[in-house]
């Protein structure tokens, strides 16, 4: 069967020349296809003597099998070669920029406000938001600040007429909340407040967060304990607080609360002006008159309240040195708060 060996050698030669799978397929078909050489051999069966036919058939089948194995092996190699070529062709510069979808950022004041709400709501505070335009009663009178009280001068107020004003403090929300709710409760009131003050460190509009706890047997020690916890969560695990006497008409005693300077750990640095402490919020035990004004019996219940400027906390937290940055809305500033 020299002829068969001939065919195998030819198949080997041609398949070797086939560069890609398409060419190889054509070569394969020229042997094994409907008009291929092996098929043609098969067709010669009729011309062969009856008794020789089984042997002939066997040989042709053996040939077919050899060729099929040969092409399968060849195909494998061609595919490998093709894949290698494709991989080489498809190499990209992985240092080119990725295609990103945009992400924005929440305002730092919002971020700090949400963080504060999360800290205090975890301690059992519910959130209450009062109106930004208030009347004189809720902003001042009910907070133990009658019309001739000198504390009215502490906060320069924007007036709209007819006893309406822009609230100067979120404490106004205390009264509205207490009118609706009976103690015990813990309440948090965040929001915009307004004072007619406009310089490097004051903005005519800023945000405050007021906290109020009223229950039986609440003491100054509880206020200190809660604020310690707040400082540790908000600033650093080693933060401490310091109370010192102050004055607000709606609390008695009133205190300023300083937090140990997170920048120097209390040793003294430019941020804390060498004192080791940073003034962060005002607080105190709720004035009896305020409780009375809201129909809460001050002999049965005591409470404490605290209020802080959210901008101030944000400025401390992020090291922002100019309050105006917070209302300029420069995207180069805002984009830094994506975390």
């Amino acid at each position, binding site marked *: 069967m020299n002829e068969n060996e001939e065919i195998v050698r030819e198949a080997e030669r041609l398949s070797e020349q086939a560069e890609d799978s398409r060419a190889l397929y054509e070569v394969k078909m020229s042997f094994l296809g409907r008009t291929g050489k092996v098929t043609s051999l098969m067709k010669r069966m009729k011309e062969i003597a009856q008794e020789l036919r089984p042997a002939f058939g066997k040989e042709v089948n053996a040939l077919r099998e050899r060729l099929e194995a040969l092409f399968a092996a060849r195909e494998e190699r061609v595919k490998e070669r093709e894949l290698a070529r494709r991989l080489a062709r498809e190499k990209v510069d992985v240092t080119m920029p990725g295609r990103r*979808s*945009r992400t*924005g*950022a929440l*305002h730092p*004041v*919002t971020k700090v406000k949400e963080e504060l*709400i999360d800290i*205090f*709501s975890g301690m*059992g505070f*519910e*959130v209450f*938001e009062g109106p*930004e*335009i208030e009347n004189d009663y809720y902003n001042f009178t009910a907070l133990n600040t009658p*019309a*001739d009280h*000198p504390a009215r*001068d*502490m906060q320069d107020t924007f*007036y709209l*007429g*007819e006893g*309406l004003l*822009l609230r100067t403090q979120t404490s106004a929300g205390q009264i509205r909340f207490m009118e609706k709710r009976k103690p*015990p*409760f*813990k309440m948090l009131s965040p929001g*915009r407040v*307004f004072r*007619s003050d*406009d310089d490097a460190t004051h903005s*005519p*509009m800023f945000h405050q967060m007021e906290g109020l706890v009223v*229950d*039986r047997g*609440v*003491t*100054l*020690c*509880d206020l200190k*304990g*809660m604020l310690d*916890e707040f400082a540790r969560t908000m600033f650093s695990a080693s933060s401490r607080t310091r109370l*010192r*006497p*102050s*004055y607000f008409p709606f609390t*008695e*005693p009133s205190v300023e609360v300083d937090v140990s300077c997170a920048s120097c750990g209390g040793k003294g640095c430019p941020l804390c002006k060498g004192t080791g402490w940073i003034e962060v919020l005002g607080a105190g*035990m709720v004035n*009896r008159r305020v409780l009375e004004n809201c129909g809460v019996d001050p002999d049965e219940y*005591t409470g404490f309240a605290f209020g802080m400027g959210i901008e101030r906390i944000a400025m401390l937290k992020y090291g922002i040195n100019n309050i105006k940055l917070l*209302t300029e*809305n*420069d*995207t180069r500033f*805002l*984009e830094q708060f994506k975390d």
Partner: protein
Amino acid sequence: MKAPFSWLKEYTDIDVSPDRLRDMLFSCGFEVEELIYLGKDVEGVAVGKILSCERHPNADRLTVCRVDCGAHGEKQIVTAATNVFEGALVPVALDGSTVKHEGGVQKIKTGKLRGVTSEGMFCSGEELGISDDFYEGAETDGILILDPADARPGEDIRPVVGIDDSIFDIAVTANRPDCQSIFGLAREVAAVLKKPLRRPDLTYTTVSTDVKVGVEVREPKLCPRYIGHYVKDVKVGTSPRWLRRRLALMGLRSVNNIVDITNYVLLEIGQPMHAFDRRHLRGDRIVVRRAAAGEKIVTLDEKEFTLNPENLLICDGERPVALAGIMGGLESGIGESTSDVFFEAASFARDSVRKTSRALGQRSDSSARFEKGVDPLFTPDMGMARALHLVSALGCGTPTSYGADALNAPAGKRVIRTSYASIEGLLGIPVPKEEVKGILSRLEFEIDDMGAEFTAVVPPYRQDIDGSPDLAEEVIRMYGYGHVVPSFLENATVTHGGLTEGQRAERKFKEVLRGEGYFEACNYSFYSPKDFDLLRLPADAPERRALRILNPIGEDLSLMRTILAPSMIGNIVRNVRRGNEEGRMFELANVYLSGELPPKALPEERKRVVLALWGEGDFFDLKGAVEALGAAFGVSLSFEACEKSFLHPGISATVRAEDREIGWIGELHPSIAAELALEKRAYLAELDYAPFAAKYGRGAEYKNPSAFPFVRRDLAVVVDEERTCAELEACILRSCKALRSAELFDVYRDARLGEGKKSMAFRLTFAPEERAEKPVSSETADGYFNKIVANLKRELGAELR
């Protein structure tokens, strides 16, 4: 309130340094905002006695002096001054010393002047930072010549000229007007140092008189106390140095002895005083009354004011002689020839003084003091007695026996009854009983201990004290806040905290926009009336009905926002100007809507959101963000072309949520952009927030997805240019129930399509029903498709491409 260390020392024994005192005051509620040592810049300056003066060998105008500087030895000083002489005592700035120089500090070194060594420099009063009131002759041209009576060679110059002293600038809280004086602060200092308080000398002797100046107070509410006292044989002249120096320490110039006494008493006792020249009080009467409308007065500083009944006046028998609590009248003021003085010490209602002072724009140290509150029962008496004592001590007049007193305030003692337990209950810590009593006694409360309870008589000047919590505060501020032990609501009830539904909705809303690439902005709640003109809003536009702030910082911040867009446009302009050429931003904030102006009731505060996009992207990018909000909250939004004065007429739409108009979207009108020199296209949308929040928290509605896949078909039709996407979409969706969505993915215009025609291509998605038992077959989908095509042709004249 300023307080010199030396003056405080007069009333109590201060055995701590100024720095230590500052810390102690701080911890008991008096923050020292500034502590200035007056001699800080004057180091190494000693008293010297000039032994000889010789002309400089090389310079006619210079003098070479030999000076005895005591322990510092003999020095040679070259000077240009012409008022030095042999035997004179002068301040000598020695080698290495510092003096004040033109607002700064100058260092003095040994050097040569025209070849002759000078081992320092003689000083003028200016170089020591003092005026004539500190030391006579300090303001003369030349070297300060010292009085041999109070200076010896070698001594440090600072005690000699009165600058070896520290000034405390103390922040006094609004509840403590009693501490707006040296004596008031000294009371606190004595209490905190646990030292006895010395009282000012209030003694004087009187001579009898027949003169009477009747006092009639017609406005008892505005003037709860009025004391007057007649002083005769007044000799107006210069005050002694100690008094002038004290006024100078407090930043006041000496005028004459009588005026100086009134100023001194204001500083020391906290009682504003006025001195009338009695001869100008017609009818020897004082009447305290409201001004008549249009009544006029000329005050000491020669300003004329036209008054109204809001203003309280001090009048004589005929006409006004002083603006009560603010300033005296010109005519009845003290002059060189004054011989009879009627002193006034009064208490006026603080808001009355404040209102008049503000309304007239006339302020004085007196009015500033009255605005903080002067008690009626204690301070006027002490102030008057102190003034009369000083008149006697200075020998500048003779107090008479005549004094008038009109009291219109309750005079009884105020007594608080409370218990030690009540104080501890509020503080949460035990305070030893003796501490409580000791602290309150040192603060001049009279304590009557009754075992578990006690009573405290409140000092008459402490108008801020009215209950047990006030006493608790007094105790803790003196006992020390350091004693407060943190606890965590050991006795309290557990409460359930957390965000309301509304607050959670707001967080989600902002998160959606953040995810869409928008930065959150924060703008003031007020803006300018000009913003309405910028937006070309017609005169009757509802946005123009804004609440007006009666006392705005400026016209630009005078109106409460009724629309958020102007602030956002400002943000865009600022960003582009700063080189931020593209960006996306939003603000969620209230607008303030009032039915009537001026408002009678609380206005509606409506939360709105404004979105902006500039530089990169277009209308449809912004619309995508709005649609994302709709999708996130399950609010179905629709858009319809509209016209707004501030939007591009072809690129603007109203936004509806379930058929209710909730806002608008569009491109900023190019003419406005041009007016703002904004070279980037900017797109804005502003929407009510409530429709989104209302849909929050409903929970997801769940349906089982079909087991079979969706079948998709692309459909392209040619329609007239006027046909909108919304019309085609609605027609397609109406045509087939099995259609899950029809989304436009291409719009194509070409001459071959015909004039005024466009091709719109939609991707149709057919979904098998939830319980379908077989998939949507290709044949079924073809059927749907053909029906849609037929409907589009019939309803909108669309031709399949």
